[in-house]
């Protein structure tokens, strides 16, 4: 059954109640702390699911007594970010879920705030991308695809998510490695995974790039052929080379992680890193990740901050090439 607090939080988040009179302060907490999770996206998407899974696992592992999730959606997270930076400043028991999509959105939307202002806690999961073609396609390998791209990029329409998103970025990186100018690419953005998939199944486009999970079932059923994946190494149960093995020196994870607000104390930050690390190493978290096709790529604290700087530089460069930054 749905417990009462969960239901109330849900209603409050939906705004049906119109006001959120639900601040469960630490006075109610027993031993385990209460936390607040900020999701800069609408309910239902990847970040929201990450937040709700974190909440679920932390509670089932008795690491927290409860949490409150706030959704402020819009524009790849750049509507929520300023709010988290300004209004949540210094709140040591809070987390924001974000990921690679936000890095891209900050650059493309020329957002006034960016991720250097918040406190990196941990990179948790990632989804590697997949390069697929319809079953009837003449491309048998990733090399065939790249050869066609080199011959005439305008003749190889590729379907994926919104312009400047992770799919577009990977396409740009592949082309760059192959020496094809990014501005000549024929990229066809689709709003949802469903529409891009149907364009592939209906043979409307030459190839598709998206998170592996979006294509996995179609690949198993033989409707699509998987040419390569963007993971760092071969994956169990997936019969396809990585891009690197296929001779394209590109690796990409659409990662998701958590951040604390700016201005938190070192003690609070350390406590939060420990909390998230404990969760990420639990059995329950592993099961959830497996069910959802999330690859665990845990990286915490300073390592995470370093990774963030590198990834931001890489994404900025490719978005510039694609004419989006």
């Amino acid at each position, binding site marked *: *059954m*749905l417990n009462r607090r*969960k239901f109330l939080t*849900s*209603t409050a988040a*939906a*705004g*049906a109640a*119109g006001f959120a009179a639900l601040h469960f302060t630490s006075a109610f907490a027993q031993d385990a702390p209460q936390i607040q999770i900020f999701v800069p996206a*609408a*309910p*239902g998407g990847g970040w*929201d*699911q990450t937040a*709700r899974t974190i909440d*679920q696992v932390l509670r089932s592992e008795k690491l927290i007594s409860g949490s409150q999730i706030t959704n*402020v*959606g*819009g*524009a790849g997270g*750049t*509507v929520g970010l*300023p709010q988290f930076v300004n209004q949540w400043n210094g709140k040591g028991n809070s987390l924001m879920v974000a990921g690679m999509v936000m890095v891209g959105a900050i650059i*493309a*939307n020329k*957002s006034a705030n960016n991720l250097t202002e918040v406190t990196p806690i941990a990179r948790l999961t990632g989804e590697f991308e997949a390069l697929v073609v319809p079953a009837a396609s003449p491309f048998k390998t990733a090399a065939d695809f790249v050869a066609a791209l080199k011959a005439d990029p*305008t*003749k190889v*329409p590729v379907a994926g998510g*919104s*312009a*400047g998103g992770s799919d577009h970025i990977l396409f740009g990186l592949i082309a760059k490695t192959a020496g094809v100018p990014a501005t000549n690419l*024929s*990229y*066809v*953005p*689709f*709003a*949802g*995974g*469903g*529409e891009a*998939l*149907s*364009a592939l*199944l*209906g043979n*409307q*486009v030459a190839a598709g790039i998206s998170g592996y999970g979006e294509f*996995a*079932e*179609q690949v*198993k*059923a033989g409707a699509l052929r998987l040419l390569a994946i963007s993971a760092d190494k071969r994956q169990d149960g997936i019969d396809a080379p990585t891009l690197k093995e296929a001779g394209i020196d590109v690796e990409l994870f659409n990662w998701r992680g958590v951040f604390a607000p700016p201005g938190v104390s070192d003690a609070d930050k350390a406590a939060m890193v420990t909390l998230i690390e404990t969760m990420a190493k639990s059995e329950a978290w592993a099961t*959830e990740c*497996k*069910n*959802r*096709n999330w690859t665990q790529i845990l990286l915490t604290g300073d390592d995470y901050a370093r990774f963030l700087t590198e990834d931001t530089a890489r994404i900025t460069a490719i978005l510039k090439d694609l004419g*989006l930054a």
Partner: protein
Amino acid sequence: METLNQLAHGFSVAFTPVNLMWCLLGTTLGTAIGVLPGLGPALTIALLLPITYQVAPEASFILFAGIYYGAMYGGSTTSILLNTPGESATIVTALEGNRMARSGRGGAALATSAIGSFVAGTIGTLGVAFLAPIVVKFALAFGPAEYFSLMVLAFITVSAVLGSSSVRGLTSLFAGFVIGMIGVDLQTGQPRFTFGMGELLDGVDVIIVAVGLFAVGETLYMASRRYAGKDEIVPLKGSLYMTAAEWGRSWKAWLRGAAIGFPIGAMPAGGAEIPTFLSYAIEKKLSKHKEEFGTVGAIEGVAGPEAANNASAAGVLVPMLTLGLPTSATAAIMLSAFQSYGINPGPLLLTTQANLVWGLIASLFIANVILVILNLPLIGLWVRLLKIPAPQLYAGILVFATVGTYGISQSPIDLVILYLLGAAGFLMRRFDFPTAPVIIGMILGPLAETQFRRAMTISNGDWSVFYTHKLSLTLLVLAFIGLAGPHIWAFIEHRRRRGPEHVPGDA
């Protein structure tokens, strides 16, 4: 035969007391959220996703399906009574439904929408059970070129709702295009008409525009005319439910609506709004009571679109259950619920999870029955809302519209937009510009643009895709017939009638 067996098995899954309880809970909740503008089925299901940690997959999908169908029923209630659409698919319902409510036939409008939803929902669900594999093949044949041609056809058809003056109608339509363009352009990632405001990057929600123009605009207009003594609301005239004549006018519209809604709903980029526009336009063309459209309210104009939106809701489940393709926000969230059970929806879903899929389909039939039983007795209660004196009623509508809009994304900017549009709606009403084309332009404009640009990207700038693809050509020819046909016909008629006394060389 095999389908029937599986369906029977599905009913045995759905007919357990616990699952019936979930179905009842879902439909009731769905009706309630459908009534509230802003809180749609996608958001509700998203918020209930954590339930998947606690209950069996069958139970949660039965609950979600109940919410999904229930919202389609509930959305029409506020459209009809308060001119405040709860869902984007019920915007068209407000056009005639609210007119009917004002002239004392609100009960009949609610009844035709409830029964029409039941009929179309059942036809649609039968379609899911028996025709899914065929329909999905047809739907996949639609590429960007075909969608663009479909939009052209839709534009031609909906010119019927432009109103008496085509200049005013077109002005409204173009205003809709502009509103629809606000936000980040999907194709290039560049912001358009956002004036540097982050909140506008995702565009303006169509519900806010509909509620602003219809409900807030109407309220302001009523307030300004309060002492002119016009626009009296008649709470009830004649029977509460439908008369024999109204039944006679409704049933064909239901069937036509279902026939339009189901296949378009099954198309990956079809959606629930376009079939309601098409159905409305067709009913208006075919009706023997054209004078009632836009005046006292024509029942066909409620029956058709309501049937169309429910049939399209069923249509959306076709690609979802046969291919694992989510083609609406609600379907996408239902798919993520599948994943939290470790079930990966895809082409093999029907074979690997037969229990779940057929249980779901069976519960859709049950949800339909429960919904019609739930909604018909409520009509008497709903209609009483109209007996509230106008000042209080309109004040209530304003509160309702404001709370509902805030509920969409808890953004104060949305409220500013709502009231700006309300003021615009008032001025449009005052100077006799139709408001419906704004909504149509806002929905169809960006779709047509996106599909056109996609088609051109894929074809590498070659225009011939629109006429070398057979399906696309067919749609364009239909559009041309729709545009030129009536004129050619009138010309032939004219020539024939005047023929004898107008021989060449006579003058």
